[in-house]
């Protein structure tokens, strides 16, 4: 049960509270470049979500099997030419950036081939934007967040497993899609507005993005309340009891007022 709650908290945190665009500012380039109409923005969001999930899966696997100290594969290979104890300490995390960018580039290539084969019309509408996903900071950011939760944690039990990593990546992508689709909807209306000339295009998009970021700041407090709702132990039962007692109080007060 605890595990499911954890996953849900990570998912809602990535999608709404700490939205990739409005909280961490990653993936701004497609947010400004591709948000001209809703269909395209939705397609871009789906592609990013898909690539992000694949990249998270591969990078989690590589990180936990090869890169971190004490990882099974590097320890096994190291065992051939050093003592088992020294092999447990091999730390390859310095290579992580190079490996991640390679993983992302190859998964984008893979997605491009797949889309071209099975959805030719979608492929045509994407055009140049599909290869550009490689340089989308959001994906590398997801990989780096996962790495920081796999390596460098003091307690091995706190390290993220595959499920947590995938839920962060997938729902981070969902949050990206929400943000970019909302922005595209607003921009379709903005085309009809009378905007001062210097502000047309990117400038007004950034200002509107700022106002949207205000709106998303409203989710900030949700985290603790959500934890309370999801944890079904004593304190919450107490809270509910108090709430029902309050309800009874209110009810009795209303009755009194009626009698008066």
């Amino acid at each position, binding site marked *: 049960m605890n595990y499911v709650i954890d996953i849900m908290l990570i998912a809602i945190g990535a999608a709404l509270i700490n939205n990739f665009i409005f909280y961490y*500012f990653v993936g701004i380039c497609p947010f400004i470049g591709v948000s001209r109409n809703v269909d395209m923005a939705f397609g871009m969001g789906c592609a990013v979500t898909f690539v992000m999930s694949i990249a998270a899966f591969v990078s989690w696997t590589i990180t936990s099997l090869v890169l971190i100290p004490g990882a099974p594969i590097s320890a096994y290979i190291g065992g051939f030419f050093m003592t088992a104890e020294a092999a447990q300490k091999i730390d390859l995390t310095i290579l992580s950036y190079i490996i991640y*960018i390679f993983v992302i580039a190859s998964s984008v290539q893979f997605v491009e081939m797949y889309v071209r084969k099975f959805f030719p019309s979608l492929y045509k509408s994407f055009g140049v934007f599909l290869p550009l996903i490689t340089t989308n900071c959001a994906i590398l950011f997801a990989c780096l967040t996962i790495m920081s939760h796999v390596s460098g944690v003091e307690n091995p039990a706190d390290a993220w497993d595959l499920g947590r990593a995938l839920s962060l990546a997938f729902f981070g992508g969902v949050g990206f899609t929400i943000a970019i689709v909302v922005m595209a909807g607003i921009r379709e209306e903005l085309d009809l507005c009378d905007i*001062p000339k210097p*502000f047309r295009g*990117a*400038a007004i998009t*950034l200002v509107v993005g700022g*106002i949207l970021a205000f709106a998303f*700041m409203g989710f900030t407090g949700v985290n603790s309340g959500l934890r309370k709702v999801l944890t079904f132990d004593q304190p919450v039962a107490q809270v509910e009891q108090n709430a029902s007692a309050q309800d009874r109080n209110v009810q009795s007060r209303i009755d009194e007022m009626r009698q008066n």
Partner: protein
Amino acid sequence: MADQPTPLERFIRGILPENPVYRQLLGLCPTLAVTNSMKAAITMAAAVAFVLLCANTVTSLIRNLLKPHLRIVVFTLTIATFVTIADRMLAAYMYQMSKTLGPYIPLIIVNCLIICRCEVCASKQPVFTAISDATGQSLGYGLALASVAGVREILGTGMFFGFRVLPATWPDWAVMVLPPGAFITLGLLLGAVNWYSGRGAK
């Protein structure tokens, strides 16, 4: 090659006429993310300048060996190498700052500015031109980051580089330090720059 700009022209162009942030809209993620204080912005700009300079030099040196279909991969791998170096250097000598900047240093790898300059200039030009282009672009980038950070830090905390510049009665506009302030500041500055440069053209 007659209409190619000279190295000096490329250097000057990077500062305002082709400013990476205000003109080409490149590398916006760190521009928004790390500009809540001037120190962080300057460090970030220095890191970007280091990576851009090294990557441009290397790309320009190996430009005759590049195969067209593999060039993006070569660019990103070169950049990733230099970013790793910059990241380790920062962690060694400025530990606190590297904690503050966090994941945005590794995100220099996918900064469109560097890939764009490698593609547009360094992969076609000799070394000296590439270096002067990189210097101009990174100077322009630093100025852009500093302008956004200056506005945000002064209005948000009343400080500039950690020194108080506005009177203590200034009600700190905390929102300028928070995410929405970044978007709105950059949007308004972008509009102002467009207005200023459009005025001369008329």
